[in-house]
């Protein structure tokens, strides 16, 4: 369930006017920005941008970029974009880092629906004049590259059908790979990047039934190997995305100095999807609410925006 609180009927023109007022003159009324944008869904935000462009012949996003700064600006920028465009930006940021954030690529390609991933690929091309897969290929190497390119290129069948024979045989293959660490990388990549999500769930369940422990538990422990790390993230995202996001949040807050990029990314991308469920998982795991943890670890307008997206009533 989503955490975003957005009224059903809004006026894009009124909202655009409020935002223009917030940016006018000296200084910026960040609270006004949060109170409008923090309570609008993707469709509404898009209408506001169009209305703003219409009324003031200016790109709202560019305006906000110039008025705001720091983590708050980054968060607003990501929040206001269309989901597909946002994912394209996140992917590009992850790829272009000196040491690419492979797990972000995994996250985007594995937790979005097949149609959503297609939309991301289109948005990426529109923005960056390259295909997503060619940029991933150009900035990664080895088996990690093979895995990531396959994941971003996948167009998984979206149906419910499960083949138990396949689940059985592929659970075996995965177990061999995990156990021996003599990874037949080709086979793992094939299974993880081509099977439908339902089929993979069946395979992971079969794995658990056959071996008494989940595949992700069996993958825990050794760090270091970049391919292994990326593989673990892949399986976690496919197996139980909410649990994966809880962990990302937990790690982002726990770190000495919050990992604002990760915190922003998860909250902004899940607020309209399943952030409520993730919050419940967070509470179960950490005995403190996500809201509290965020409030403690962040400050100012950035904090205010995050808490609003987390469902704080004004």
């Amino acid at each position, binding site marked *: 369930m989503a955490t975003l609180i957005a009224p059903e009927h809004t006026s894009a023109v009124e909202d655009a006017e409020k935002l223009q007022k917030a940016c006018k003159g000296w200084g910026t009324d960040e609270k006004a920005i949060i109170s409008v944008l923090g309570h609008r869904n993707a469709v509404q935000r898009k209408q506001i941008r169009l209305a703003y462009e219409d009324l003031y012949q200016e790109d709202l996003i560019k305006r906000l970029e110039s008025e705001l700064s720091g983590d708050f600006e980054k968060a607003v920028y990501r929040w206001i974009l269309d989901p597909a465009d946002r994912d394209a930006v996140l992917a590009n940021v992850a790829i272009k880092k000196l040491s690419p954030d492979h797990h972000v690529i995994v996250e985007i390609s594995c937790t979005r629906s097949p149609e959503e991933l297609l939309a991301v690929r289109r948005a990426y091309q529109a923005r960056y004049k390259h295909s997503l897969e060619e940029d991933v290929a150009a900035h990664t190497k080895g088996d990690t590259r093979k895995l990531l390119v396959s994941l971003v290129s996948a167009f998984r069948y*979206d149906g419910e059908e499960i083949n138990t024979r396949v689940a059985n045989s592929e659970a075996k293959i995965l177990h061999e790979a995990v156990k021996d660490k003599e990874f037949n990388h080709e086979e793992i990549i094939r299974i993880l*990047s081509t099977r439908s999500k339902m089929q993979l769930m069946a395979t992971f369940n079969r794995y658990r039934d056959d071996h008494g422990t989940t595949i992700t538990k069996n993958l825990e422990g050794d760090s270091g190997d970049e391919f292994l790390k990326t593989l673990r993230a892949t399986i976690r995202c496919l197996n139980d995305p909410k649990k994966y996001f809880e962990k990302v949040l937990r790690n982002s807050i726990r770190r000495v100095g919050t990992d604002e990029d990760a915190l922003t990314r998860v909250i902004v991308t899940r607020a309209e999807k399943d952030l409520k469920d993730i919050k419940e998982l967070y509470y179960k795991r950490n005995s403190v609410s996500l809201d509290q943890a965020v409030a403690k670890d962040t400050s100012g307008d950035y904090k205010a925006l995050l808490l609003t997206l987390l469902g704080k009533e004004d």
Partner: protein
Amino acid sequence: MALPVHIEALDKAFSGIGVDEKSLISILTNSNEEHKRSLRKGSSKLFIEDENGFERWDQSSIKILKHQFNRFRDAVVLSLLHPWERDARLIEKAIRKGPKHYNVIVEVACTRSSDQLLGARKAYHSLFHHSIEEHLTHIKGRERKLLVALVSAYRYEGTGVNEDVAKSEAQILYEAINNGDKNKLLDHEDAIMILATRSKQHLQALYRHYSQSYGKTLAQDLEGEGILKDTVECLCTPQTYFTRVLEAAVKEDADEESKRALTRVIVTQKEQLVQEGFVPNKIQDILLGLYKDFLLASIASGDIK
């Protein structure tokens, strides 16, 4: 008694690609039993002497005739299908039929626009309840990786090519072909990445750099490399690929699969055929009947938008 000219006409009616229906109607409806008997006796290609004293239709001829009569049907069906369903079915059939047909997969993946290929992938889901990638993974051969990569591509279609990158990637391919183990080309990760992820404009620039730098074309260097050569041609010089396929179809000793390519290429490429003019002249003589009418009309109307 059937005149020799009738026997000849009967043979001719079946001896091209397609069937001369008009000729058959005129011969057969005007023949009584006597005539037909001498037609059978005179047609050594179609009939053989059975030990029980009658002219029996030769089995392999019946098979050929089946193909011949189906050509018009196949052209009609292929023509009417939504392009997405059409391409999905072409791919599915190619996967099922095996390695000799993988060039069709390459053809569809590499000569359609990015959105058309996406459409084919969606249609594949609806029709076959699996993704193309899933079905491809049942191929045990070494072509699998390349084929999966090609069908998964959503290539950028804008202009703007980084010539330096194109040149350096031409070098990577050159080294892979000439310095490495040519047998391992299909496993060469960098080569596959380049061919499967770069835009067609980029690859065409790469193709130019390759010729300029090494004095031969990339396609020439891949002579004998089956689907790798097909891939490069389809992406960089599609007219060369299609010309080659069409000429193979109208050759004297063309097999059934080569002939089937006629229908596929002409129906799917008719717009380009008119512009590029790569239909062999021989086609006028070798096609027969309604099938001929259909294909020639397709080509003629090719630029109707």
